[in-house]
């Protein structure tokens, strides 16, 4: 289905959910309608975006304070005609983004990764823990204000200080 069809379909079921349409396969959703619209995208027989390919989080600290700090991009795939849809959501530092792990199982780890590396929290996630770093790791490495060389990189690292889940 092309972008026009997707937009008109979504407008019918969730009016006002779409904030902006950009390019051939990208829509931006409003924060408040996000969860419902995502459910529709998955459930609706004609849309049928049944695979969540990936979640990308971008730290837009350079565009603050004009816009929210984070951009989340959900990459969806329809298994019928293999069409891709990018769903964008702007999230502030204090926003709790509704989890979509109950809709797509793949969101479980994807959201954990975003939480771990970017520090965005998801409400309704069953198991929101760090995934690539360890339990008592400080900071979120992919944020732009996290130094590349890490914190205290010049000091001897005590491996016994790592707490595992």
């Amino acid at each position: 289905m092309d972008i026009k069809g997707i937009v008109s379909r979504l407008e019918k079921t969730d009016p006002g959910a779409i904030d902006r349409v950009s390019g051939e396969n990208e829509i931006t959703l409003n924060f408040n309608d996000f969860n419902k619209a995502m459910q529709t995208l998955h459930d609706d027989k004609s849309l049928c975006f049944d695979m969540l390919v990936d979640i990308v989080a971008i730290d837009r600290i350079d565009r603050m304070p004009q816009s929210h700090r984070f951009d989340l991009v959900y990459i969806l795939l329809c298994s019928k005609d293999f069409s891709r849809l990018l769903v964008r959501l702007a999230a502030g530092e204090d926003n709790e983004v509704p989890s979509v792990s109950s809709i797509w199982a793949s969101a479980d780890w994807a959201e954990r990764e975003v939480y771990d590396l970017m520090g965005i929290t998801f409400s309704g996630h069953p198991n929101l823990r760090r995934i690539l770093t360890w339990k008592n790791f400080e900071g979120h490495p992919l944020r732009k204000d996290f130094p590349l060389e890490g914190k205290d990189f010049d000091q001897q690292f005590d491996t016994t200080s790592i707490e595992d889940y």
Partner: protein
Amino acid sequence: MAEGKTITLNMGPHHPATHGVLRVEVELDGEIIVKATPYIGYLHRGIEKLAESKNYQQAIPLSDRLDYASASANNMGYCTAVEKLMGIEVPKRAQYLRVIMAELARIMGHHLWIGTHALDIGAMTVIFYAFRDREMIMDINEEIAGYRLTPTFFRIGGVAADTTPDFIKKVREFVKWFPKALQGYHTLLTENKIWTTRTMGIGPISAKDAINAGLTGPSLRGSGVAYDIRKAFPYSSYDDFDFKIPVGEKGDVYDRYLVRMEEFAQSIKIIDQAIENLPEGPVAIDSPWITNPDLVSVQTDISELARRFVLHTKGPVGPDKEVYHAVEGAKGELGFYLVGDGTEHPFRMKVRSPCFYLASALPRLLVGHMIADAIAIIGSIDVVLGEIDR
């Protein structure tokens, strides 16, 4: 037998059958797995963060080290994504060479899979044959790129060098030889009683579940979904070639095995077509903003010299936009989400790693099976930790 009381067993991170530093905590009721929790991150190198500090050319070696078992296929993903970002059309000859390298890498990755997977389940013989043939591909890599495992042969805008006569000869030799070798693998496994008993009906996953869990590549196709990016979103001239997407039915370990075995054959078919129809022409675009001037002209031409310096010390500039581009890696949909900001460095590079989602589906695949089958299942989804942890 007294049910209800369970034992927790820790597999990995240093376990030969987890194919890297994957750790799975399994809870056993007798021999049956009732709960499985994978832990990852032991190989986390921060490749996405590192890429933000490199220029677009410099980040290519980082992509080699994602799924290091099939390095060129990752190059393909990264370079085509950057080219999409910059709006570059790569010359036909380079596209064909890239296809050859990527398909050879796929075969290399599958070699590692078949060898270790069979070894894990107890079929010792296959790995020796698989590694014998893998060695031939490494020699081809060495011939054209100088490196064997991680050739870093791709460049933004093309490939690093043109072919050598030896390269063509070696690829042709391999294309001629490999179907025979593949037949050998089949002889050893496909109808082997022990092999079929250990794999048939083990770890099945339905198409719906596989899609929901984000499985891609051979593991998804084993469940009967014919999703292959080479066909769904063709790139690098894949629509020039005649090949099929093998699919399974039941989505169990055996079906995934069969899919990969057929992929060997299809990849050889693609390589054969590509090497025989290799177009003439340059192997990289000629753009003053992307490619290096040749070494002769920099000695006489100040503009070429200056540009060469800028390209080496700063690198090509990426425009201020975002793209998602995915290719069919050896393990599935390998995607790169690139955010450019008008500088020489990507503002953000996100790797959509197929193995990450394959590993995330492990609990669902393992529960209800015997502990011995866990080895078969982990082997069948073919994860490489370099790509999971990045």
